[in-house]
């Protein structure tokens, strides 16, 4: 990237601390301000409760954003995790695009409507992915990866064997689908 016109611009921004100070500050300030405006925690200017107290909200958001940019670990985590989330978003949109190829063009493509019942599973997967991304950005997953790398074939096969046995036991002991329907 360096050496190109746009690449040099990014490097210049990096040198002046745009990514380490300005962007995290802007992000935290905007999110805090937006939440405070939405929730109207500090009350409203008018009796109808329509106009939030902008100056108070802005001041609180400003102070919190300044505190955040002094916490280097948090800034580093934001810098690592947000781009990964963006990449995951690109992948999800690509997936929706591919599935949408087979959908009709008469109305808007609604994935959840089309695959009803997957809502909970998808929400669960996204939650796990998000937690993993944040754990990774703090470096908390490193011991886990090193454990996985050193687990060895024997232990892996043993794990699969135990899971298979548990699965078979559940299959045999559990109620049959017919009984479940009757219940």
């Amino acid at each position, binding site marked *: 990237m360096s050496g190109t016109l746009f690449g040099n611009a990014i490097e210049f921004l990096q040198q002046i601390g745009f990514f380490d100070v300005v962007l995290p500050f802007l992000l935290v300030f905007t999110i805090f301000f937006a939440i405070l405006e939405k929730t109207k925690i500090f009350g409203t200017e008018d009796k109808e409760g329509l106009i939030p107290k902008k100056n108070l909200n802005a001041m609180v958001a400003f102070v919190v954003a300044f505190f955040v940019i002094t916490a280097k670990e948090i800034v580093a985590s934001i810098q690592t995790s947000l781009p990964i989330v963006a990449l995951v*978003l690109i992948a999800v949109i690509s997936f929706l695009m591919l599935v949408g190829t087979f959908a009709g063009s008469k109305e808007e493509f609604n994935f959840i409507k089309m695959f009803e019942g997957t809502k909970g599973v998808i929400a669960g997967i996204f939650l796990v992915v998000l937690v993993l991304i944040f754990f990774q950005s703090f470096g908390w997953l490193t011991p886990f990866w090193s454990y996985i790398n050193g687990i060895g074939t024997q232990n892996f096969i043993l794990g699969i064997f135990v899971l298979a046995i548990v699965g078979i036991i559940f299959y045999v002991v559990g109620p049959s689908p017919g009984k479940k329907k009757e219940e």
Partner: protein
Amino acid sequence: MFEGVDLNTVMASLESIGFYDVALPFLLVFTIFFAILQKVSLFGNDKNNINVVISLVAAFLFVRTTVLVIIMNTFLPQVSFLAIAMILFLILISIVGGKTDEWKGAPMGIAFVVALIGIVLSFLSSAGYLSQWPEWLQLTKYDLNLFIFIGLVVLFIVIVTGGVPAAGKKSTLDIFKELGEGVKK
């Protein structure tokens, strides 16, 4: 006017100014974030300015992370190739009389699984994870043969036992019929 124009040179000059490494990823991430924030109205309605700032920050941070830009530059062409393959498949289906505009039931489920596998594989291969399995998880020729054998045995059992439908259950033949019906609809 266009006598000396060579589009390859234009592309090369775009690459030399960092158009593919900086400008395009920035535009893509900014647009996707902004579109999603506008759609879900996370911070309330008519909050364009807030959505723009959050999208800008995300796009700038993404562009700065060179590794992710490289992954995206590899991933998106692969996905485009997959999309082209799917469109070609639909064209082939339409040649033999199947309708291609609205799939339902089992065929849509298969399309879902194929798209999911395609996306996951291209994502992993772009990120270089496919060649980075732990040593104990790398498959040898013997393992592959074993898996193929187990797969064939399972398939055989499913076909044999699924051929005779139990009360309220679909047989394998019914599933294939449903596949055909879904494409025909």
